[in-house]
């Protein structure tokens, strides 16, 4: 009894408390028993939920700080809504307040919902009137109609100019942006493309107004230093504004082209030369591509496969002879890939040229889906299909976003190219594409002047009146770059090449392009100039915090009233247009990582396009263990130290700076914190995660069957495959020793194929088979049953979550914190020893923070292993 009321000895014995702590805690408990009647049923019910309500205290040894922790957590529990609150007291009070607030909210919400629902149904309710109206409109005579068009255009333009240029005071601006925002929120719910255009218009107005205001009233002309800093930021902002506008034009109306039907008579199908250029890639990678190419459904006498080996390697020659494809090598490797292709073209005479990088495995339906358009449109020079990657790129691998978030390429191949296609400006991406031979010959072969021969070739084709097409059906898959440094190296090459084209063969100038083609090409090239502006944004608030430079010479409230609508509208519009292909804010991380590295080469290329050979960073091999890429992360570490210093300055300014600047300091601090977290996310990318396997496993759900040596067969589900084996899920466990032979029956279309492999692992209902010993012809069949399936890459985006900007922001910020934590883990031991006490203090302080009660009791679940 005593031990229950005054658990001093138990605390001493079981929890190892000091005499003082044990005495105080026991005393508090005793007081509780005396004054609170803890034995009553209500208190008992509460005590039973101890683990749920106080999750962080349940298994913790008792310490002197616990009473405070209990107090904080209890207050927290009383204030926030808990997932399961049935048994907790004061529920009625909370319900009443909640009801009051919902009622209050409903006053606003109900008309809003009515209004927005009306907007959502607007297109259907309006459509009869609209059709009637358009009839009436069509019946008007053309000169009159033309006049009306012009009048409406002039009126709209005048109104827009007024909206952009009219200077507003604080209140007027507030009303203006709130109205526009409400309009956007209403329009957002309407389906269809017209509301998207409306959102674009709103966003353009708000952004233009912001920029106008920035140019006219936020520069401090009296102070040279302020002016320089302010102008630098303004130039960077103008750049993003331009990219935003060009992007709207580019992607406002994606074409969603469908394949064109081929004639039923296969003798009318054109002859295709399929080129697989290679330079230093491994044979094991190239093999899969060749096998897949051999499986393409095209008449054998009309499909010629050529392996273009710039490395001149005997092993490639032998392999080509083995599988019966053409082998082309050359003595020099001038002009790299473009030279390699041009050299091969001299030896070939097919009607069409399909190009696959040596690690891009084509699906068997590639040619039948793409070639139709060449027959339908005699001026068509190019059909491009998406590049799909079956392995995670360094971002996806290091951030753990593979298969659940769209990656960097998703936006480009999912939307931008489709948008380009609308304006006949879809361009060549070097692989997974097919071109018309006469078109290439007419421009003198693939362009060799720049390091991005693909885009330059497409530009020349367009200049010469050829058209292009983009087919958004993933019909090939390849390997992503292995390491961050290799990835950055590749992007540097693209950036440099695109800027080179921008300088030497500017799409805005010269003959033969439509205005929209010019815009699309310009945007594609300008996009790579993002490096410097991004660095400006990452350091801009420091100019004020360090040097007290007024970079935006305006009251902080006005800045917010102008800049927030600009950002919110852009984000709303882009979320609607690109929601399926990218997540808001993730692009910032991609850009931030690349910014430093592409800033220098692009700037150099911009001023002297022929100069500056920036060696591509060495291609990293497999990440054998977790490691931190210090070399790559260095610029970001410096940036984060600078921003952290900025925070220090901010604290100093808060206490010792002028009173009227406090709000400005706070805004700057928020900006710096955002920068710090984005940089943190970039740092997180540099912590390279170990790659577990040599070959990349592709997840799949394919029906199949296994046949054992004793003649028994069982149905199974193919859950993953690589070029050397498969993982299978059976409906019941098989008792088989590792190493026993097992045959796998796979279906493709109506046909069945059998592959005999050996059992490598068996865990309950999951087994793994290795196909290392397959003869070559069966390997071809295996690739055709797996990587080469027509539908192999169609559902790659099924795991993507819909874009939710707020959620996305939270994730990015959490990622930033994680980045710093990862950095800490990789720090040298002595720094960690120094940092440890501080970290302990933080942890100790953190232990006082309240926690959200868990809704269900925690049961440890076995983590599935594969």
């Amino acid at each position, binding site marked *: 009894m005593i031990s229950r009321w005054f658990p001093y000895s138990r605390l001493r014995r079981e929890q190892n408390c000091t005499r003082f702590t044990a005495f105080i805690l026991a005393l508090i408990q005793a007081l509780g028993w005396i004054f609170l009647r803890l034995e009553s049923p209500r208190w008992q019910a509460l005590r039973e939920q101890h683990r749920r309500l106080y999750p962080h205290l349940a298994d913790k040894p008792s310490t002197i700080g616990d009473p405070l922790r209990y107090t904080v957590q209890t207050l927290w529990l009383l204030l926030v809504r808990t997932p399961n609150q049935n048994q907790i007291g004061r529920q009625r009070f909370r319900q009443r307040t909640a009801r009051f607030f919902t009622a209050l909210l409903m006053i606003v919400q109900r008309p809003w919902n009515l209004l927005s629902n009306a907007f959502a149904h607007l297109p259907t309710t309006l459509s009869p009137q609209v059709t009637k109206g358009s009839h009436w409109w069509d019946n008007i005579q053309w000169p009159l109609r033309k006049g009306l068009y012009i009048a409406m255009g002039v009126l709209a333009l005048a109104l827009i100019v007024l909206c952009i240029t009219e200077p507003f005071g604080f209140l007027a601006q507030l009303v203006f942006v709130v109205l526009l925002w409400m309009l956007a929120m209403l329009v957002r719910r309407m389906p269809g493309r017209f509301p998207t255009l409306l959102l674009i218009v709103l966003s353009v107005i708000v952004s233009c107004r912001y920029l106008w205001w920035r140019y006219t009233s936020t520069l401090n002309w009296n102070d040279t230093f302020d002016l320089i800093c302010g102008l630098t930021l303004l130039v960077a902002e103008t750049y993003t504004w331009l990219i935003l506008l060009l992007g709207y034009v580019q992607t406002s109306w994606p074409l969603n082209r469908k394949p064109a039907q081929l004639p039923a008579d296969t003798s009318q199908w054109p002859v295709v030369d399929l080129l697989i250029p290679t330079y230093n890639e491994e044979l094991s990678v190239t093999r899969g591509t060749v096998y897949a190419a051999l499986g393409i459904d095209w008449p054998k006498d009309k499909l010629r496969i050529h392996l273009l080996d710039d490395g001149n390697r005997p092993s490639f020659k032998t392999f080509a002879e083995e599988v019966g494809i053409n082998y082309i090598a050359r003595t020099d490797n001038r002009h790299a890939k473009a030279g390699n292709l041009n050299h091969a073209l001299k030896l070939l005479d097919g009607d069409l040229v399909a190009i696959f990088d040596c690690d891009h495995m084509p699906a068997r339906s590639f040619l039948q889906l793409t070639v139709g358009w060449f027959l339908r449109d005699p001026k068509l020079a190019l059909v491009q299909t998406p590049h799909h990657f079956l392995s995670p790129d360094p971002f996806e691998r290091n951030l753990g976003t593979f298969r659940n978030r769209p990656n960097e390429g998703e936006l480009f191949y999912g939307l931008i190219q489709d948008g380009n296609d609308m304006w006949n400006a879809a361009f060549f991406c070097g692989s997974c594409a097919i071109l018309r031979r006469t078109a290439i010959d007419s421009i003198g072969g693939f362009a060799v002047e720049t390091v991005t021969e693909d885009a330059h070739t497409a530009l020349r084709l367009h200049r010469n009146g050829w058209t292009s097409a983009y087919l958004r059906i993933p019909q090939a898959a390849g390997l992503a770059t292995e390491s961050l440094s290799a990835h950055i190296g590749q992007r540097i090459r693209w950036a440099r090449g695109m800027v080179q084209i921008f300088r030497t063969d500017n799409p805005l100038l010269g003959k033969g392009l439509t205005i929209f083609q010019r815009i699309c090409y310009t945007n594609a090239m300008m996009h790579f100039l993002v490096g410097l502006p991004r660095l400006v944004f990452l350091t801009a608030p420091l100019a004020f915090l360090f040097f007290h430079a007024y970079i935006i010479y305006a009251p902080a409230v006005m800045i917010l009233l102008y800049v927030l609508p600009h950002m919110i509208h852009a984000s709303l519009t882009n979320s609607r247009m690109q929601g399926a292909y990218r997540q808001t804010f993730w692009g910032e991380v991609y850009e931030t990582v690349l910014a430093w590295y592409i800033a220098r080469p692009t700037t150099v290329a911009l001023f002297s396009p022929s100069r500056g050979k920036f060696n591509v960073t060495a291609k990293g091999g497999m990440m054998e263990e977790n490691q931190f890429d210090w070399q790559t992360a260095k610029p970001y570490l410096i940036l984060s130290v600078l921003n952290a210093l900025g925070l220090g300055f901010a604290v100093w300014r808060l206490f010792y700076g002028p009173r009227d600047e406090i709000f400005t300091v706070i805004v700057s601090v928020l900006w710096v914190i955002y920068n710090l977290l984005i940089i943190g996310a970039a740092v997180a990318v540099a912590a390279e995660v170990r790659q577990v396997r040599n070959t990349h496993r592709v997840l799949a759900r394919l029906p199949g*069957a296994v*046949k054992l040596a*004793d*003649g*028994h*067969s*069982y*149905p199974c589900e193919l859950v993953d495959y690589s070029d050397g084996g498969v993982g299978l899920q059976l*409906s*019941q466990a098989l008792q088989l020793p590792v190493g026993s032979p097992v*045959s796998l*029956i796979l279906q493709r279309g*109506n*046909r*069945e*194929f*059998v592959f*005999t492999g050996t059992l490598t692992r068996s865990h309950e209902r999951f087994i793994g088979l290795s196909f290392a010993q397959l003869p070559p012809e069966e390997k071809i069949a295996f690739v055709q049953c797996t990587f080469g399936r027509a539908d192999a890459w169609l559902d790659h985006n099924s795991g993507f979550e819909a874009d939710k900007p707020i959620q996305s922001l939270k994730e990015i910020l959490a990622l930033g914190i994680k980045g710093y934590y990862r950095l800490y883990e990789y720090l040298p031991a002595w720094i960690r020893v120094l940092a440890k006490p501080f970290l302990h203090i933080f942890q100790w302080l953190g232990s006082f923070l309240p926690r959200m009660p868990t809704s269900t009791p925690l049961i440890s679940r076995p983590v599935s292993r594969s």
Partner: protein
Amino acid sequence: MITLSLRGVRGGVGTSSTLAALGHALHELGQKVLLVDMCPENSLGLHFNMDLAPREGWARATLDQQPWHEQAWVVEPGLCVLPYGQLKPSEVFALDALLIEQPKLWTQRQIALAKGFDWILFDLPQRLPGHVSSPHCRISMMVINPDAACHVLLQPQLAQTPLFLVNRFDAASQLQRDLLLIWQQRYAHALVPVNLHADEAMGEALARSEPAGRYAPASLIALDIISLASWCLLRGRRPA
């Protein structure tokens, strides 16, 4: 009620085993099924752990002018087997002649059975034209094995049987794959889209006196048979 018959293109292609397994699978899918043994060998019941060659059966009863429908055995509620009964060779021919004489005999019986069953499955013999032609079935399938002999036999068969069912397909065999490809090409509409794979479990099932689906429910052949049953259900639902 839907009637279905299976007949081998030749002996030994696995007709009875397939019929027994199909009957069991349809029953598993919630159907009331009657299996009728039309073969004088009188051995369909073996698949359901019944006696070898029972004396009584529908053929015996028909010849003896007895009530034929009393001869059915209930294996499980909703799954019945009607044996052939023991006949002397001469009696078999007499019955065959009788069936030719009265072509409506089984049609009338089918109408009588319509209330009690969703499916009636007939195991047809090789020869005996009266036995073969007597039941008029909504779905008649000819069971074939993917071998050259069956391929030869198929050539003149095309006109008579609307559907071919491939049994004992082993995808590892080049010849079998090739034959299947030819058949898919040539008899695209006549070939049942479900192939029954060669599986040791099918042979073992008979040795255990069980239909394959009950003996080895996890086996590939059991899945194939269920697929076949599902296909039959879909096809049966379609207006003829």
